[in-house]
């Protein structure tokens, strides 16, 4: 037997080592996958051996294989075995493997609690060190709760190496177990003044991470940090502190005054660029927080901007990048100071480095301040961006540019756009430039928004959209550019009254082409709108033949849609078909009866001779599409007041029985409409509805549109534009002959040239007056040059009655999943008695030799995995029932292998402190009389 074992061990000497594995993979470049599969088989063999060294070697190999993209979680148990080895060499391999493949949701890690606790309390500091490093990668909330106390103990270890690691580890614990923050905080604070610089740095690191998300809770630490900043020489720590101060000053501007002196001292003395840069950054933050609103600080902001300019002009690309980054911070509050350096930033748009170009792009646009853009330079900037788009490689960057163009133009509800015909032309050009872009729906939204909100541009929009529909390439199937057809078709139909040639539009729409269903639906709807418009015209001219011709044309084209596989298209098409058929029948009725009575007469039919039914149909159809559609305020739905006596939570029908629920779900799923079924309420069957009902339906539809992504949701207040005085400006009639072909020079450039011409004329005119203006001041001059808006934007948005537009209900800005939300805890309140870290009472496990544990684990591997899962389930069930007794009995019956203290603890948490003590005593007593299974931890030993 022994001989066999020795022999077995000897054979194992010839196992592949990690080096062999790597070499083998390199030698089998052509069939790597096969070779690795073979190696994994070998590893599985090796893992079955008893020798821990063999297992260790196998796990080391697995760690390498994991890096190549193979899942090794199946070996989780073996990894835990290797982790539990007493040898540091093996332990290290085990923890490395665990850190690479375990994660907080791994089921297995609940088996590691006691083992990790043992390692944390180990005599050798590197055992604990390695355990901390590994644990930091996969700590779960259960582990955090169970180990928090042990880690806290390590924070006051005599070894600085362990203190340092433990302090960092505490941050991970806080993230998973926020309750630990308050009891642990005093210790953490203490560590800020630890004699060891490494520990100090770690503590600073942790507090900085904590304070980044919830700065206000850490204001009280400012004096300590201030002291550290003035005394420390550790650059890394200084950077962290300075960054922290930057976030603290935003909530406590007074801090800024104190900071300026030491910051300047550091700037003067340091040679590290990184530190210098962070100092500048914080100075900027300080200046911004102090100077918001106060004019006397603009000089220092100017100075900062000047310094940043030096950074941006530096030949070092990294500094250039960082300079632009810092510039964007200033831009948010002091756009005027940055705008002075427009030349520099526009030059950066031409940089060969994409990162820098993106940063410069960011400077062009910024939320509220407006960035670099003004009414004056918008056309010019957009022209340059379009030029970049033509040249730029890489669709991601082109997409980014496209998006930026739209962002710049649409900001502040188009406050910088003076000529919307120009803007529409730009949009059409963007469509033509980027057929493969993913921003199709963004452009579509813009088209809709502009044509809805700028009334004077509608006629232009309709003709543009008609030609867009005509020229849109059939071939580009990829990308989302198709979405623009959706917008175009809708505009053409909805604003057909502004159109000069509705028949042309109708013919374009009737040209059948393969399109996604939701777009086809819009096509049909708008074909109907156009049809109504034309027929109404024809009716006025009493041209029955024309109407009949049109009816026949539609009846010929629509059947292709009727057979569509898209359910909505089908429905709309058939309703439209029937409607038009009805109209034709009515007309035919009359013309037939007339034709055989007065055959010789010329078919000039008087109004009385057109069937009254037909007229009614046309009128009702016209009524259906009458009225303006206005954008709906984004929060309109929320603000609809619930009428008295309506209880939304009440069941309308009694709830269905449990069993039928699933089938119900399926049914609703089937009819979940496409996201963009915009006009779904305008079903043609509404013809029979009275005008009141139609109005009601319209209201409902408007409500629905508030949820519709295709309607631009404006967040600006309605009277913003009035400030600009646009209303007073007479709207110029533009009689432009816009060439519909795309020439080599862009169409949108024409507007720019016109603009420039106009401004030239103006400067000539104002030359004489300029001198006097100079005396008045600089500001008035710049105002004078501002181009005049040609079109005005309507900011009317629909709101439910009695609701006012306000932005005060934007509370939930934070990400729900952000663990820092739970860490927003007031740390200055004194600790309550019950706020303590959970302590562990049993240490028996330590006495058991890990080697034996490992052996037992191998033997009971399969059973215990099963068991652990089963136990977990049971635990859940028990929790639900709240029956503690049962759990206890269970744990008696089934010995808990490897020792999971979870259950034990959960129970304990619920108990009162006194209770706990008494129980512990009981446990201790009972232990003596219990026959101990090796490797089994205490929870099962509770005898009642």
């Amino acid at each position, binding site marked *: 037997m022994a001989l066999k074992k020795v022999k077995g061990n000897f054979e194992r000497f010839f196992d592949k080592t990690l080096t062999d594995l790597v070499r083998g993979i390199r030698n089998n470049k052509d069939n790597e996958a096969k070779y690795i599969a073979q190696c994994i088989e070998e590893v599985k063999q090796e893992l079955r051996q008893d020798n821990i060294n063999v297992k260790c070697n196998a796990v080391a190999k697995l760690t390498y294989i994991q890096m190549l*993209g193979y899942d090794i979680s199946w070996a989780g148990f073996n990894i835990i075995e290797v982790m539990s080895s007493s040898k540091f060499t093996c332990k290290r391999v085990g923890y490395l493997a665990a850190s690479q493949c375990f994660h907080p949701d791994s089921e297995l890690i609940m088996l590691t609690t006691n083992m990790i606790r043992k390692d944390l309390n180990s005599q050798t500091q590197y055992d604990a060190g390695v355990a901390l490093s590994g644990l*930091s990668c996969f700590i779960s909330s259960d582990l955090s709760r169970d180990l928090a106390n042990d880690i806290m103990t390590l924070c006051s270890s005599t070894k600085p190496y362990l203190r*340092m690691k433990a302090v960092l*580890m505490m*941050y*991970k614990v806080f993230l998973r177990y926020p309750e630990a923050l308050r009891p642990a905080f005093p210790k953490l604070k203490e560590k800020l003044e630890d004699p060891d610089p490494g520990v100090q740095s770690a503590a600073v690191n942790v507090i900085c991470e904590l304070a980044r998300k919830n700065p206000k809770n850490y204001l009280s630490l400012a004096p300590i940090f201030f002291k550290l900043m003035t005394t420390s020489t550790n650059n890394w720590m200084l950077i962290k502190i300075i*960054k922290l101060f930057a976030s603290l000053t935003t909530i406590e501007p007074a801090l800024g005054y104190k900071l300026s002196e030491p910051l300047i001292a550091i700037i003067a003395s340091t040679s590290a660029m990184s530190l210098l*840069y962070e100092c500048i950054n914080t100075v900027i933050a300080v200046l911004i927080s102090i100077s918001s609103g106060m004019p006397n600080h603009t000089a220092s902001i100017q100075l900062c901007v000047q310094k940043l300019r030096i950074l941006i002009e530096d030949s070092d690309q990294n500094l250039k990048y960082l300079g632009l980054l810092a510039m964007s911070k200033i831009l948010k509050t002091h756009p005027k100071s940055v705008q002075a350096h427009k030349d520099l930033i526009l030059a950066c748009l031409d940089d060969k480095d994409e990162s820098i170009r993106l940063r410069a792009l960011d400077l062009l646009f910024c939320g509220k301040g407006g960035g670099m853009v003004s009414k004056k330079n918008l056309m010019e900037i957009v022209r340059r961006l379009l030029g970049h788009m033509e040249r730029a490689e890489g669709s991601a960057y082109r997409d980014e540019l496209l998006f930026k163009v739209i962002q710049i133009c649409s900001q502040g509800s188009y406050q910088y756009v003076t000529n919307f015909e120009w803007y529409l032309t730009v949009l059409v050009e963007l469509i033509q430039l980027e057929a493969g872009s993913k921003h199709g729906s963004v452009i579509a939204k813009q088209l809709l928004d502009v044509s809805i909100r700028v009334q004077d541009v509608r006629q232009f929009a309709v003709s543009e959209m008609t030609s867009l529909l005509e020229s849109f390439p059939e071939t580009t199937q990829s990308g989302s550019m198709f979405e623009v057809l959706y917008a175009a078709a809708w505009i053409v139909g909805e604003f057909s009254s502004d159109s000069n040639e509705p028949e042309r539009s109708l013919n374009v729409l009737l040209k059948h082409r393969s399109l996604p269903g939701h777009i086809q639906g819009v096509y049909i709807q708008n074909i109907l709108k156009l049809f109504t418009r034309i027929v109404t015209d024809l009716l006025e001219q009493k041209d029955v033949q024309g109407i009949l011709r049109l009816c026949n044309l539609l009846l010929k084209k629509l059947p292709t849609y009727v057979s569509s596989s898209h359910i909505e298209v089908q429905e709309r098409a058939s309703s439209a078909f029937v409607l038009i058929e009805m109209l034709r029948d009515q007309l035919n009725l009359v013309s037939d009866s007339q034709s055989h009575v007065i055959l010789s007469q010329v078919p000039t039919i008087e109004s009385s001779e057109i069937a009254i039914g037909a007229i009614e149909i046309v009128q009702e159809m016209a009524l259906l599409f009458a009225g303006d559609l206005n954008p709906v305020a984004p929060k309109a739905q929320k603000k609809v007041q619930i009428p008295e006596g309506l209880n939304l939570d009440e069941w309308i029908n009694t709830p269905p029985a449990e069993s039928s629920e699933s089938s119900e779900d399926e049914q609703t799923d089937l009819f979940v409409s496409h996201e963009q079924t915009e006009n779904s309420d305008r079903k043609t069957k509404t013809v029979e509805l009275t005008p009141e009902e139609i109005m009601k339906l319209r209201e409902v539809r408007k409500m629905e549109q508030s949820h519709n992504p295709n309607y631009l949701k404006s967040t600006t207040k309605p009277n913003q534009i009035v400030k600009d005085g646009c209303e007073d400006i007479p709207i110029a009639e533009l009689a432009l002959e816009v060439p519909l072909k795309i020439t080599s020079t862009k169409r949108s450039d024409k507007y720019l040239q016109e603009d420039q011409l106009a401004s030239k004329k103006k400067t000539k005119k104002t030359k004489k007056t300029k001198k006097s203006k100079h005396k008045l001041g600089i500001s008035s001059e710049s105002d004078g040059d501002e181009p005049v808006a040609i079109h005005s934007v309507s900011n009317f948005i629909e709101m439910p009655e009695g609701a006012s537009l306000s932005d005060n209900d934007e509370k939930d800005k934070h990400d729900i999943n952000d663990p820092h939300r739970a860490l927003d805890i007031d740390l200055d309140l004194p600790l309550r008695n019950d706020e303590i870290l959970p302590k562990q009472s049993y240490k028996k496990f330590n006495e058991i030799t890990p080697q034996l544990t490992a052996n037992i684990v191998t033997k009971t591997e399969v059973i215990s995995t099963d068991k652990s899962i089963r136990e977990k389930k049971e635990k859940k069930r028990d929790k639900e029932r709240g029956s503690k007794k049962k759990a206890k009995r269970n744990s008696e019956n089934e010995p808990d292998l490897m020792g999971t203290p979870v259950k034990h603890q959960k129970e304990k948490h619920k108990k009162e402190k006194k209770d706990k003590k008494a129980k512990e005593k009981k446990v201790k007593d009972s232990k003596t009389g219990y026959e101990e299974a090796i490797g089994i931890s205490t929870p099962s030993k509770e005898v009642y």
Partner: protein
Amino acid sequence: MIKAILVFNNHGKPRLSKFYEYFNEDMQQQIIKETFQLVSKRDDNVCNFLEGGSLIGGSDYKLIYRHYATLYFVFCVDSSESELGILDLIQVFVETLDKCFENVCELDLIFHADAVHHILSELVMGGMVLQTNMSEILARIEEQNRLVKQEAGLSAAPARAVSAVKSMNIPQQIKDMKLPDLPQAIKDLKF
């Protein structure tokens, strides 16, 4: 916080991957691939910062990288880290590797991926910077290596003998009989 540390060569082959946030293996490979594509197409004289990939990160995250000969060292970090500081940290990492392996080259990283992990764990722990002082890091690594040697001690003597034999590549030749009987030395020339 550091979200991930990746080391790969000029062809995108991973040499070290350390994720401080959980991604499954397929996702990890995709991230490595995407990061490689982002980084490799950049010239050497452009800046070392990259607004993150789509898979890893988001708006708050940045890729900060350095390119040494055949290897890219990429750190994915959020805005709480100083950009230039991380660049310095990469430098410290590489210099430490250089000290530990004596003139480090890609081959060292290939054959001692575990050692590289152990070195990295002395610099960064769970996504937070642990130690930036190189002499301190080296001292820690030295002590741990000594511990490993001690443990190996006598019991590992046969193993060491075997590994010595192995480096002569007899077992390799026994195992892979299909291979022509070329001494491994010639094969090594491929590297």
